[in-house]
């Protein structure tokens, strides 16, 4: 299966529904930290331009706040695509974005257990 199909399958998103209004990106609180913005994820997946996305730090900047899903007038659900590309990236061999040994440095006493769990789930194989 090629990457594009895999992403569409994981996300269940149909990027053809996008009317390119940009409301997702207008809404996104992580916009300035992202190299590729939610509407670009939708467009790039649609056109099969996946490699730059897989490489991009933007994958780890999405807060999963789902504001883009909530506001999209065409029910495209961009955040699900971001999530699917992310899954695709970490499923690649050796593409762990975070290693167990890096964790202690990032943790302070306020860090909830749940966060650690989800970091591993999201960012490593």
């Amino acid at each position, binding site marked *: 299966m090629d990457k594009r199909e895999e992403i569409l399958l994981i996300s269940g998103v149909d990027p053809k529904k996008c009317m390119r*209004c*940009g409301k997702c*990106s207008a809404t996104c609180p992580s916009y300035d930290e992202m190299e590729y*913005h939610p509407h670009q994820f939708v467009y790039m997946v649609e056109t099969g331009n996946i490699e730059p996305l897989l490489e991009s730090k933007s994958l780890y900047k999405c807060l999963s706040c789902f504001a883009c899903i909530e506001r999209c*007038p065409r*029910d495209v659900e961009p955040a699900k695509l971001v999530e699917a590309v992310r899954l695709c990236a970490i499923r690649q061999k050796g593409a762990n974005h975070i290693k167990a040994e890096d964790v202690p440095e990032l943790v302070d006493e306020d860090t909830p257990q749940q966060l650690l769990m989800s970091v591993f789930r999201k960012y490593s194989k």
Partner: protein
Amino acid sequence: MHRIGVFVCHCGTNIAATVDVKAVAEAALNETGVVFSADYQYMCSEAGQTLVQDTIKEHKLTGVVVCSCSPRMHEATFRKAAAKAGLNSYMVEIANIREQCSWIHKDMMSGTEKAVILMRAAVAKVKLNAPLTPGQTPVTKRALVIGGGIAGIQTALDIAEAGFDVDIVEKQPTIGGKMTQIDKTFPTLDCASCILTPKMVDCAQNEKIHIYSYSEVESVTGFVGNFTVKIKRKARYIDEKKCTGCGECIEKCPMKKVPNEFNLGLDNRKAIYIPFAQAVPKVATIDSNYCIKLKTGKCGLCSTVCGAGAIDYTQQDTIIEEKYGAIVAATGYNPINIEKFDEFAYSQSPDVITSLELERLMNAAGPSNGTLVRPSYLSNQHDPEAHPHTIVFVQCVGSRSTECRKGSKEYCSKICCMYTAKHAMLIREKYPDTDVYVFYIDVRTPGKLFDEFYRRAVEQYGVHYIKGMVGKVAPKADGKLNVQASDLISNEQLHIDADLVVLATAIEPDKSARSIGTMLTASMDTNDFFTEAHPKLRPVESPTAGVFLSGVAQGPKDIPETVTQASAAAAKVIGILVKDQLTGNPCVAHSDELMCNGCSACEKVCPYGAITYSDKEFRQPDRTVAIRRVASVNPAVCQGCGACTVACPSGAMDLKGFSNQQIMAEVDAICR
């Protein structure tokens, strides 16, 4: 002896590409009773019709089957042709081998097989056809227009111009509709009331036009040419004939805190009111929800000051009944409720407004006398902060959106790109110190001089058009509105501190349209816009005979299109009213009194009220006489829908031209 002729149409390649028309024509000759068959390129053409006529004469045909497009397209054409050749029109049957066959099949084999079957069914049916003669019914030469916006006004004026009486039923105290609330109109920027008021006055002065303002349609019965309509005249507690519209009463009324719907709640009015200076009829109305006298029995000030003695606190709703030959639905639209779109903070900040509210803020008769102020400063208009410097327009709010946003509309509201360009341009013209931004998905400006108009806003008036949407509006502590938006061309997220945000709100049909549609048995689409009889070729007629459509009630449109359609609807109405008699449809139901057991099942399902019962005497086999209750159908009212024939448990109801026997013969032929 049957002598049937079968004619198979190619419809160019529409049919011939997937149906072997020659094979169908040949197969027809195997049917008993068929004495002639032929295929032809275009049966509906003059040559095709002549072929039918010549064959009828030459072969002394008793019945004709045309295998062609849907009977909705050309049944009437071939019936007329047959009649000209001396064959009763109702001896013609259509086998639909286009919409129901060639257009839905891909391969020749199955297409041809099905076409042959459909031809066989039509031949089986035509053998049981009987000649029918349509009846004539007289026409009531008066029309009803429901809704008195610019659509209803124009329709009424045109019908009156042709010399017919026409009544307008308007639920508000005045006619005029939304156009009375608009300041200037695109694309020429003439003042809306300057062009509308003369038309409203013409309505009032035209002796052929009667305006029932503050009134609603209660019920509609009857059929084309003969509708009976009950109209509720809501109590306005004023004698319309006596009131001179002087406004003394309004001056004195102590109840000042009533939200003024004409200004969309941006200011208040009194409990007794005339919506605006140019109202037609210019008559006061007491709002019973707020009047102190009507609520508590005290006050009564208005009646003491009214010199004309027009005020009557005892007035009640009254129902009047009128007869009409034709009815026009012109119930218009309203902006949708955008409180649910909370990302735009409409319910959080008074400075986030709809475009219609902006029209009132820019209008000389509006709450700020035409000076553009931030609504949060309406009570303090001279404060230097009242003037907005940065204004953001958001297009497509609630339009072009799937069901995922509740209350939003999938369609494009069509008028908002143009009125937003108008607003932006007018603001920049009057207040050159303002910064005006328009966020758009697409700018849709098809129409004469429309794109030129929008380009003027950009090129001459310096309006900043930005391709992208607003994601969020957040009111800040200092009263400004933080607008977070995307600029898709520069690939940036923008943050603009705005003083005023204007939402180009989607429009939807008036909420009452659905119940009006039900009363008229006029069909509507899923958005509650009235459906036209044919989207291209019969755009101002409803599929229900005698019911016509005018204005936004049929779909979003601007004033030029509304007026065009209004006049077209009037032309259709006049086409009915000029006739003394209408030719009915002879394919109506009739009951076999010997089989009817008077159960009332048919009466309950008849949508037109065509069925009545009477007690009749019947001679029994033993020569005694029994009295039984039996159904009979008024052929002038029956529309031939056939609902009763299905409901009748005794098989007593049957439809002429579509008898149970004929339908069974078709089924048999198909299953053979």
